[in-house]
């Protein structure tokens, strides 16, 4: 039986810092240690707090509604999400990854995702490290889904990332709303809970998976979605500060006959992808930007490869990576 209660005073989580900032005006950025602690508290809450609810994700005029149930298991988490509109999709996440089950056109498709983090689990497990690259400013109190929250601005220290405004629930630090914003403070994308119940979960969840459900979620043994890269054909000379490569796999994309390489760079919060594949003909250099400017991309030729770089980041970040790509002279041809 859980001890959680929505009326519990703040500070229940071990190691959490009580905020002592003036309530009304947005204060100066927090000193690095406090910033790190605050980020870590919000990050931990998404994994360690039990909650269930419905949230809306919005980009421009496009919206998606999802339900989520999060159950902490020891220090890890188990989440289940379900799309409430559009294609029927259910996602199950654990520490080791996530599997998505789509019912489309009468068919059931199981897909493994590379990442297992969804809103509100936006911040990485080591969120304290973000304090090196982002200013953290507590702001005013707001209400989201009926709960008291504190607005927290997480703004980049440079031009290589977008910022966020998070609304962290007072008692637990759980982000109930997150707005991704650009350099002018314009919103790019937004998540917000419409309703949430923190602490006690419906008893039906604790009965575990039935036999049928277990079968429905077992990936066929042959379905290996990705495999590791053996030889690197390209080197990245120029990464924005704080970014490192967090994964590199070979994977099959729907429109392509052969596998492509997919590398991901991240600072923990911002993600940029690099795709590499053989260039079948001379590649023209192209730059693109999504309508609201949230996603920037570049495509160019590097040696014998076609490189496509895209990410939820400002153009300077994509440009830095794209311009710094060099073919490795020791690379074997594919």
């Amino acid at each position: 039986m859980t001890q959680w209660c929505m009326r519990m005073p703040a500070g229940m989580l071990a190691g959490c810092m009580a905020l002592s900032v003036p309530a009304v005006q947005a204060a100066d950025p927090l000193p690095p240690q406090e910033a790190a602690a605050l980020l870590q508290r919000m990050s931990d809450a998404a994994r360690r707090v039990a909650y269930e609810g419905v949230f809306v994700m919005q980009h421009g005029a496009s919206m998606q509604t999802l339900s989520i149930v999060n159950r902490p298991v020891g220090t890890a988490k188990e989440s289940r999400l379900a799309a409430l509109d559009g294609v029927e999709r259910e996602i199950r996440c654990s520490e080791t990854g996530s599997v998505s089950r789509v019912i489309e056109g009468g068919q059931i498709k199981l897909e493994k995702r590379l990442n297992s983090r969804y809103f509100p689990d936006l911040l990485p497990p080591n969120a304290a490290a973000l304090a090196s690259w982002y200013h953290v400013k507590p702001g005013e109190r707001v209400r989201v889904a009926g709960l008291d929250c504190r607005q927290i601005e997480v703004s980049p220290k440079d031009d290589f990332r977008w910022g966020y405004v998070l609304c962290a629930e007072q008692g637990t630090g759980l982000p109930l709303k997150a707005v991704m914003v650009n350099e002018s403070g314009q919103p790019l994308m937004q998540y917000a809970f419409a309703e949430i119940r923190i602490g006690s979960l419906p008893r039906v969840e604790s009965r575990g998976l039935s036999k049928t459900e277990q079968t429905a979620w077992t990936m066929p043994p042959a379905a290996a979605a990705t495999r590791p890269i053996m030889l690197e054909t390209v080197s990245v000379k120029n990464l924005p500060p704080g970014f490192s490569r967090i994964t590199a796999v070979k994977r099959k994309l729907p429109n392509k006959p052969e596998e492509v390489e997919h590398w991901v760079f991240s600072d923990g919060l911002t993600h940029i992808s690099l795709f590499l594949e053989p260039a079948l003909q001379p590649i023209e250099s192209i730059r693109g930007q999504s309508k609201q400017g949230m996603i920037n991309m570049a495509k160019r030729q590097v040696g014998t490869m076609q490189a496509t770089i895209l990410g939820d980041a400002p153009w300077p970040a994509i440009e830095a990576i794209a311009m710094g790509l060099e073919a490795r002279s020791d690379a074997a041809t594919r």
Partner: protein
Amino acid sequence: MKIHVMTESTMPSQSEQQNSPAESRHENLSALIDGELSDGMARIAITQLGHSPGDLARLGEYLAIGDAMRGLNTRHDGFSARVMAELENEPVVLAPVQKKRESRPTLWLAAATAAAITWVVWQSNPRDDLAVPLASVQQTAPQFDEASPYLAAHQDFAQAVISTQEMRFTKASLEIRP
């Protein structure tokens, strides 16, 4: 929250209390919304609901109290009565008809459909050294639908679960100086 554990129950149980018929009915409704009525009792309670007009509103009060205790925006007006009034014009729903569920796949991740993203790009001709001025736009959308799988694969990692129909790309021209 402190929980007091009572060592002795001093309150009379339901069977000892003399509930009026109305009170019994309401107590059943209270248990019904908590999901704590046996199947048989639930069936009776639901049937009785039809005979007692004010009961549905009372049930609404109980539900609204719970919401208010949890600090949620709530409401208590004639909404359900209005819905039920409108339903009176509807043919009564009878036993389930096994119809095949029509699926209308709305794009969720830009996996396969070319219409998912429209790219508008201005390409610089690699033979020219001049950057194409931003004012001159050439629409080459069809060629760049191939970007959708990249976006989907990227979003596979970058936590977005949104449909990518809004990802309309604009601008371009990129000069790579050797």
